[in-house]
C-alpha cells in the first residue's frame, strides 16, 4: 500500500518535473541519452576496467585507467620534490591544521576564538619553520623543492587568509570619506583587477627583481604569494563593497547615535552584516583563487597541475596523462566542492531571520 503510494508520488513528480511539456520531455530524453553515452563508459574505464595495484606500467592492461601510475608518483604529486625524509614535516603541519579545524566545527566547543587566533597567527609561523627548516635542528628545504598539492595548498591558503582582511580594508577605503584614502584604494583595486593574474606572476618573477638593488632578492615563492594575495584582495574588495552597500544606512546611524566610533561601527555592525550577505561571492573568489594557483606553473613553480605535467613527460610513463589530469581534476573538484558546501552551511547558520 505504502509502496504503491510512493510509486504514484514518483510518477506524479516525474510528470510535473520531467515531462510537463513537449519541450521538457524532449530535454529529458536528450539528457538521459547524454548520461547514457557518457557515464557508463567512464565508470567502466575509471573503476571497472582500471588497474589499481602494481609498480610499473607493465602492471596496467591499458583497457581501463592505470591508477598504478598515480600510485607510483603519489609522493611527487603530493609534495613535489620535497625530500622524502623531510615529508613528515608537511604532514605534521597538515595534522595540526586539521586538528585545529575540527573543534571549530563542533558547535559546543568553548574556545573557538582562541583557536581561531592560533590558526591565524601561530599556526602559520609554526608551519613556516616546519616547511622551510634551517632552524630548530631541521635541515633547510628550499622553496624551489616545494611542489605538488602541498604547494597548491600553501599558495591558496596564504592567498585566501591574507586577501580577506586586505580586501576588507580596501573596500572600506574605497568608501571612505577621506579623498586620499579612497583614491589610493580605488587606484589599487583597479590596477590589480585590470591585469591578468599571469601578468602579475610574470612581473613578480621576472620584472620585479630588476627593480631591486643588486644583491637583494626575495624568494620566488614569496613574490608569487604576494602577487596572488594582492590580486585576490582586489577582487575580494569589490565583493565586500557590494555587501557594504547593501547594509541599510539606518544601521550606521543607529550605531553612531549610540556614540560608537567608526571602527566599532564598521567592525561590529556593518561588516558582520555585509560579509554575511556576500559569503557566496567571497567563496566564489576563493574557489577562483584556488584554481588560479595553477598559473604559478608559468613562473617555474610546480604545483599540483605542474607536477602532473612533469611526470607526464617521464620516458618510462609516457601516455598516462589522461589519468593524471582526471586525478588532478578530482582533487580540485573535491576542494572546491568542499568550500562551496561549507559556504552554504555558513549561510544557513548565520541566518537570523531578517
Amino acid at each position: 500500500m505504502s509502496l504503491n503510494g510512493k510509486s504514484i508520488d514518483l510518477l506524479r513528480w516525474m510528470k510535473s518535473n520531467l515531462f510537463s511539456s513537449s519541450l521538457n520531455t524532449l530535454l529529458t530524453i536528450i539528457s538521459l541519452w547524454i548520461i547514457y553515452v557518457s557515464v557508463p563508459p567512464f565508470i567502466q574505464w575509471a573503476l571497472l576496467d582500471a588497474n589499481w595495484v602494481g609498480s610499473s606500467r607493465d602492471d596496467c592492461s591499458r583497457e581501463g585507467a592505470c591508477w598504478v601510475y598515480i600510485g607510483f608518483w603519489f609522493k611527487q604529486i603530493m609534495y613535489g620534490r620535497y625530500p622524502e625524509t623531510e615529508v613528515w614535516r608537511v604532514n605534521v603541519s597538515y595534522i595540526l591544521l586539521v586538528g585545529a579545524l575540527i573543534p571549530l566545527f563542533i558547535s559546543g566547543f568553548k574556545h573557538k576564538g582562541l583557536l581561531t587566533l592560533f590558526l591565524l597567527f601561530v599556526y602559520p609561523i609554526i608551519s613556516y619553520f616546519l616547511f622551510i627548516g634551517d632552524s630548530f635542528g631541521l635541515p633547510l628545504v628550499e622553496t624551489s623543492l616545494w611542489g605538488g598539492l602541498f604547494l597548491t595548498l600553501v599558495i591558496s591558503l596564504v592567498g585566501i587568509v591574507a586577501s580577506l582582511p586586505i580586501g576588507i580594508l580596501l573596500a572600506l577605503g574605497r568608501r571612505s570619506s577621506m579623498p586620499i584614502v579612497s583614491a589610493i584604494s580605488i587606484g589599487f583595486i583597479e590596477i590589480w583587477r585590470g591585469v591578468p593574474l599571469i601578468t602579475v606572476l610574470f612581473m613578480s618573477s621576472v620584472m620585479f627583481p630588476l627593480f631591486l638593488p643588486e644583491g637583494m632578492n626575495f624568494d620566488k615563492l614569496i613574490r608569487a604569494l604576494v602577487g596572488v594575495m594582492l590580486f585576490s584582495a582586489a577582487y575580494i574588495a569589490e565583493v565586500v563593497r557590494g555587501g557594504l552597500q547593501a547594509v541599510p544606512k539606518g544601521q550606521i546611524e543607529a550605531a553612531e547615535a549610540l556614540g560608537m566610533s567608526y571602527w566599532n561601527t564598521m567592525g561590529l555592525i556593518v561588516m558582520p552584516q555585509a560579509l554575511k550577505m556576500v559569503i557566496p561571492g567571497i567563496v566564489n573568489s576563493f574557489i577562483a583563487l584556488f584554481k588560479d594557483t595553477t598559473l604559478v606553473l608559468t613562473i617555474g613553480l610546480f604545483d599540483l597541475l605542474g607536477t602532473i605535467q612533469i611526470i607526464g613527460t617521464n620516458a618510462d610513463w609516457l601516455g598516462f596523462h589522461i589519468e593524471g589530469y582526471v586525478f588532478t581534476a578530482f582533487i580540485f573538484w573535491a576542494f572546491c566542492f568542499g568550500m562551496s558546501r561549507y559556504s552554504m552551511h555558513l549561510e544557513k547558520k548565520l541566518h537570523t531571520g531578517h
Partner: protein
Amino acid sequence: MSEQVDVQPNIEQSISNDPMIKLNGVHKWFGDFHVLKDINLTVNRGERIVICGPSGSGKSTLIRCINHLEEHQQGQIFVEGTELTGDLKHVEQIRREVGMVFQQFNLFPHLTILDNLTLAPIWVRKLPKKEAEELAMKYLERVKIPEQANKYPGQLSGGQQQRVAIARSLCMNPKIMLFDEPTSALDPEMIKEVLDAMIELAHEGMTMLCVTHEMGFAKTVANRVIFMDEGQIIEEKEPIEFFNNPQNDRTKLFLSQILAH
C-alpha cells in the same frame, strides 16, 4: 489613565531653567534645498517637546542635527554647553548623552536583543559584560519584554522592536532622548505599547524631543508643541493653547487635516 493625571503635575515641577539644548540661528541645505531656516530653540532639562508638521517640513532633519547625524551649515547648536562642530571627539561625546529612536527601529539584525542592548555599553562605556547584561535586562523589563532577550530582532513584532530600540538607547543612560516618528512605521494596534513606554519615560523626567503625529501623546505628555513648515518653526506653544487656539493659518490647516478623522 488616572495615574497619568496624578503624576503629571509632579513632573511639571522638575523642569528647571537649565538649557540642555540650544539652537541659535541654525540653517541647513540639502544641495539647493533650504531644509532648515533660522531655527532658534532652547530645550530645558526635563522638558518634553513634540515637533509636528507636514512631511518635508524639516522636523526630522532638525532633531537629527542635534546628535549630528545631519550637519548644520550655519548657526550654532549646543548640547549641554558643548558646541557641535565637525570635531568627532565632541560629536561622539554628545552622542553618548543623547539617545535616539528611529522610525524604522534600526535594531542590529545580526545580534540578539540582549546583544543589541549591551553592545554600546560594553564598547562605548567600557562596562564589564555582566554589568551590561544586568543593565540590559533592567531596561527590557521596563519596556516589558524581558522574555525576548535571546531572540533576534527579525522574530519580534514592530511594536516589540521599537520598545527594544527605546531600551537600547536607555542602556547608554542618556540625558536627552530624541524620537524620530517612533510610531509611524507601526501597525495601529502596536502604537499604544510604544507610546506607553515613552509616557513612562516622560514621567521619569527625561528630556525628550519627539517628532510625531500622535496628537494624543502631545496633549498628555508635551510641555510644548512646535509646529514646523517649510523649514521654519511656525508656532511654539503649550499643548492646550496649541490645539485650542492656533494662531497661524498653516497650523490651523494642518490641525484640521490630522484631527479630521
